[in-house]
C-alpha cells in the first residue's frame, strides 16, 4: 500500500495572539503569512463545492471526493471501492473506454485517483483555462459510467497485480496488513484498502454496479477546486455540469464501533525477508469522537515529540544515542472517519532483537507518562507546525487534499482552521495526560516480522554464448 502523506490542515487565519512559539521574537514576521480564504457552496442536489483561489501559477486542481472507501465495505467485498475506482476510467454512455484519458492528455492534464479507508477521490491538474474539461468529465462519470463485464475481467487482473506489487511481495507491507486485521476486531479499519486476494478473486461486475449505484450520488460528494480560478466562475461551472444530476437515496452507514479491547494483542508474521520489523499500535480517539476536543491535538504533539522528526526522542535516543534502532518513528492518525491508532514502528539495528527494541520504545512511553516533556521540545514542535503551515501552501494539490479529506471523513473542512490554534494551545500537562490515558498496554497490538530464509539464484546469459552460467546462489538470512 502506498503511504502518501497528506498534511492535515490548512487554516484561514494565523492566530497572531500566540506568537511566542519561536525562540526569537517574530511578531512582525508572522503577519507576512497571507490568509487563506475557502469559499463553499452546496448545489440543490447536495453536491458541496470548496474553492480556494491561488494565482501563483496559471494552473488548477480539480478533485472530486466521494464518501466511500474500505471502511464502508464489509467482509467478503473488501477492495470493492478501490476496484470501482479503477473501472471509473473505463468509459461512460457517451465516451468509450480510453477516451477520457485521451481528452485529458490532449489538454495537458495530469490525472489520477486514490482510494483510502474513508474516501475515493479523482483528480485532474491542468491549465486553469481548461477547468471545464475536467468538470464535464467528472460530471459525466458521476452518473453515466458503463460498467462493462469484459473491461472488468481485465482490470481486476490489474488490481491483483497491484496487490502483489504493493503487499504480497513486500514483507513490511504484509506485516502492516495483518497487524491491522488483528488490532481491529469489528471496525472496518481492519481490512486492506486494496482488498483481500480472495475477495478480488470472487468479485463480480454486479458488485461494482451495485456499489456505484449506492454511493456515487452528488450529495455524497465534495468538489474541491484550488488554483488560478475565480470562485464565482467555479460555482457557475459546477452548476452547469453537475446541477442536473439527481441525487439518489444513500444507504445508512452502520456504526460498527470497535469493541473495547481487553488486553494486549500480539502477532508474529513470518515471511522471506532480510530484516526484522516491529509495529505497535495503541487504540486512540480521533477528532471525530474525542471526549475532550484537545486530546487528539495533544496526541499529535506527543507523536511529534516522540518520533516525528530528526530531533524527536526516538531518533535522538534510540537511533543516534543508544544506536539500537536502524530506524524508528511514530505517527498518529487522529483525522479519520473512525478512531484509529497511535503507531510506533521500527527496524532494530544489527545485534538488537525485536524484543529489545520493543522494550526501549515502551520505556520511552513510560517516560512520557511520568515526566513532563520540556518546554523546549514543545516549542520546537510548535515552530515546526507554523513553518509547515507555510510550506504546505507551496502545492495546490496538497491544499486541495487537506480540504477534501477533512470534509469527506465528516470532520468538516472548517476544522482545518482549528488545527493551528489547537496545536499551539497544547500544554506539557496535556501531553502527559494523553500518554497516561491512551498509551496503555491493554489497548496495544504488537506485530513482529520474523524474517525467513530468502534463497536467491542468479543466472546470466549473453546472446552469443548459449551456455548459462550460475553466477551466485545465496541462502539464509538473519
Amino acid at each position, binding site marked *: 500500500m502506498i503511504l502518501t502523506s497528506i498534511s492535515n490542515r490548512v487554516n484561514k487565519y494565523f492566530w497572531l495572539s500566540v506568537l511566542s512559539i*519561536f525562540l526569537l521574537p517574530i511578531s512582525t514576521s508572522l503577519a507576512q503569512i497571507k490568509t487563506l480564504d475557502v469559499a463553499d457552496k452546496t448545489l440543490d442536489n447536495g453536491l458541496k463545492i470548496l474553492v480556494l483561489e491561488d494565482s501563483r501559477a496559471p494552473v488548477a486542481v480539480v478533485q472530486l471526493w466521494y464518501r466511500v472507501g474500505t471502511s464502508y465495505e464489509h467482509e467478503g467485498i473488501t477492495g470493492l471501492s478501490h476496484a470501482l475506482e479503477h473501472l471509473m*476510467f473505463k468509459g461512460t454512455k457517451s465516451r468509450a473506454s*480510453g477516451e477520457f*484519458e485521451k481528452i485529458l*492528455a490532449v489538454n495537458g492534464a495530469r490525472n489520477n485517483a486514490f482510494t483510502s479507508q474513508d474516501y475515493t477521490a479523482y483528480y485532474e491538474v491542468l491549465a486553469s483555462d481548461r477547468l471545464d474539461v475536467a468538470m464535464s468529465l467528472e460530471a459525466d462519470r458521476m452518473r453515466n459510467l458503463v460498467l462493462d463485464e469484459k473491461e472488468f475481467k481485465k482490470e481486476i487482473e490489474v488490481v491483483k497485480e497491484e496487490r502483489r506489487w504493493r503487499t504480497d*511481495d513486500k514483507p513490511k507491507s504484509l506485516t502492516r496488513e495483518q497487524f491491522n486485521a488483528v488490532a481491529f476486531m469489528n471496525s472496518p479499519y481492519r481490512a486492506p484498502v486494496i482488498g483481500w486476494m480472495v475477495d478480488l478473486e470472487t468479485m463480480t461486475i454486479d458488485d461494482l454496479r451495485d456499489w456505484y449505484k449506492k454511493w456515487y450520488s452528488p450529495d455524497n460528494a465534495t468538489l474541491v477546486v484550488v488554483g488560478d480560478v475565480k470562485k464565482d466562475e467555479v460555482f457557475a461551472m459546477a452548476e452547469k455540469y453537475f446541477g442536473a444530476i439527481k441525487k439518489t437515496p444513500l444507504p445508512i452507514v452502520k456504526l460498527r464501533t470497535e469493541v473495547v479491547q481487553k488486553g494486549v494483542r500480539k502477532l508474529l508474521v513470518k515471511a522471506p525477508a532480510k530484516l526484522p520489523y516491529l509495529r505497535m499500535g495503541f487504540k486512540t480517539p480521533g477528532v471525530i469522537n474525542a471526549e475532550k476536543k484537545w486530546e487528539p491535538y495533544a496526541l499529535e504533539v506527543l507523536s511529534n515529540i516522540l518520533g516525528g522528526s530528526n530531533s524527536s526522542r526516538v531518533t535522538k535516543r534510540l537511533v543516534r544515542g543508544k544506536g539500537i534502532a*536502524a530506524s524508528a518513528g511514530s505517527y498518529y492518525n487522529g483525522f479519520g472517519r473512525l478512531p484509529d491508532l497511535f503507531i510506533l514502528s521500527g527496524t532494530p539495528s544489527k545485534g538488537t532483537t525485536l524484543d529489545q527494541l520493543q522494550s526501549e520504545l515502551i520505556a520511552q512511553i513510560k517516560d512520557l507518562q511520568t515526566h513532563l516533556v520540556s518546554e523546549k521540545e514543545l516549542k520546537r514542535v510548535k515552530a515546526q507546525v507554523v513553518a509547515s503551515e*507555510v510550506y504546505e501552501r507551496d502545492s495546490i494539490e496538497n491544499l486541495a487534499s487537506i480540504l477534501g479529506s477533512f470534509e469527506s471523513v465528516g470532520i468538516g473542512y472548517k476544522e482545518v482552521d482549528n488545527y493551528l490554534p489547537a496545536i499551539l494551545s497544547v500544554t506539557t500537562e496535556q501531553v502527559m495526560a494523553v500518554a497516561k490515558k491512551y498509551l496503555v498496554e491493554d489497548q496495544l497490538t504488537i506485530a513482529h516480522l520474523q524474517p525467513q530464509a530468502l534463497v536467491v539464484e542468479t543466472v546470466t546469459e549473453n546472446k552469443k554464448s548459449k551456455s548459462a552460467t550460475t553466477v551466485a546462489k545465496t541462502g539464509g538470512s538473519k
Partner: protein
Amino acid sequence: MFKHIVVAVLLSLWIANVSQAAPKIEHWKTSNGLSVYYVSAPSLPMLDMELVFAGGSVRDGAKSGVSLLTAALLNKGADGLTADQVAEAFEDVGATFSASSNMERSSISLRTVTFVEEMESALQTWLKVVGKPEFPEQDFKRTKKQALIGLQAQKQKPGSIAEKAFYKALYGDHPYGVSGSGTEATINAMTVPDLKAYYQQYYVAKNGMLAMVGAIDRKQAEVLAERVSKVLKVGTKAAAVPEVKPLTQSKTVRVDFPSSQSHVYIGQIGNKRGDADYYSLYLGNHVLGGGGFTSRLMKEVRVKRGLSYSVYSYFMPQGQLGPYILGLQTKNKNLDEAIKVAREVLIDFVEKGPSDEEIKQSKQSITGGFPLRTASNANIISYISMIGFYGLSLNYLEEFSPKIEKLSREQVVDAFKRRVQPDKMVTIVVGGKKKS
C-alpha cells in the same frame, strides 16, 4: 514534514515521469567562482536552497558508497555542534535540511521560512553543515551500520535487486554501473578519512552550483550566495565522467527470487543532457511509454491484457549517456507473455514509429501540461538545479514547448531508429519460478 496525517491511499494509475515550466532564471557567479541560479518567488514567505556538486557515486572509485556516506554525515556534527544539536537548531525554527547523493550529483538542501530571525538562524546552521562538517567517529560508525542495514533492505526487494542488476549489466565497469549504496565489503572498509577526502575534493566552490527559489530579492540572494561560497574552499572542477560505450549484444540476467511477481527491466544506453536528439526522443517516448494511459505500452500490456499494474519507459539523461529503461511487473506465470508483448510494442515502434495522430496528441499533452511543471517552488528548484548543473540554456523552460512543437514525425522516427536497438538490449528478470 512531521505533523502530517499519513493516509493509506491507492493510486489507480502509475505515474512514470513527472516534470517542469517558465519562471525567470537569473544567473551569476560569486567572487570565488560558485555558480548561482536564482528565481524570485515572492508569494510565500519561504526559501528553498540547493547546493549541488559534481560528485555522486560516479566519483566513488574503489570506495563504493563513499559519496552516500559523506552526504549522510554532513549533519551529524559541524562546527562544534553535535548531531542532536544540528537537528534541534534546524527544527527549532521549522527549517528542513537534507543531503543526498545520486549518480553524479551530491546535494545539500534547505527549506526555511523567510521571517528574518528564523531564516538567519537556519542559514547559520546550514552554513556550518556545508562548510564545517566534522564527521565524528561515533556517528560514522553508526551510519555505516545503517548503510549495511540499507543493503539488506535492498536484498529483500525484487525491484531493487532488478534495478541494481540492470545498471551492472548495462554499464559493466563504467562508474554508472556501480551502485551508490556500496557493498558490504566497501562499506565495512570505509574510514572517516575517506569521507573527508571526498568532501574536500568535491564539496568546493568551483565544482558546485547554488540554486535558490523564494521570497528574497536579487540583492539578498547575492549577499546570501556570497556567504555560501565563502564557507567553501575554492577548489577545482571535478574531471568529467568517462564516456559510455553502448552494448554490442543482448544480455539476459535472471534472478530467482521467492516473490509472486517477476520484475522486468529491459533497456540500453539512452541519451545525455543537451543531447541533439533529446527532444525527438522525449516526444517519441511519450507515445511509446512515457505518456501514462495513452502510451502504447500501457494500452497493450495493461489495458488490453491486464498483465501489469505499472508499465513504462523513459530516458534518464545524465552528463554522459544515461539509461533507457522499460519496466513492468507481472505474476510469474505471465512473465513470458508480458515480455513478448512489451518487446513487440517496442520493436514495432522503432520500425514504424508513431502515427501522425499520436505525434499530435503527445505534442498537445506535453505543451498543454507544461505550466504544471513549474507550479510550485519545489518544482522550480529541481529544474534550475538541473539546468545549472548541466549548463543548459537559461531559456530551457521557455524553449521546451516550442522545441517539441516544431518536431516532425520523421525526426522522431529517425532518432529512434538511430538511438534504440531492440536486438542489443539488457533484460533483467527478478522473480519466482513460473508455477502459479
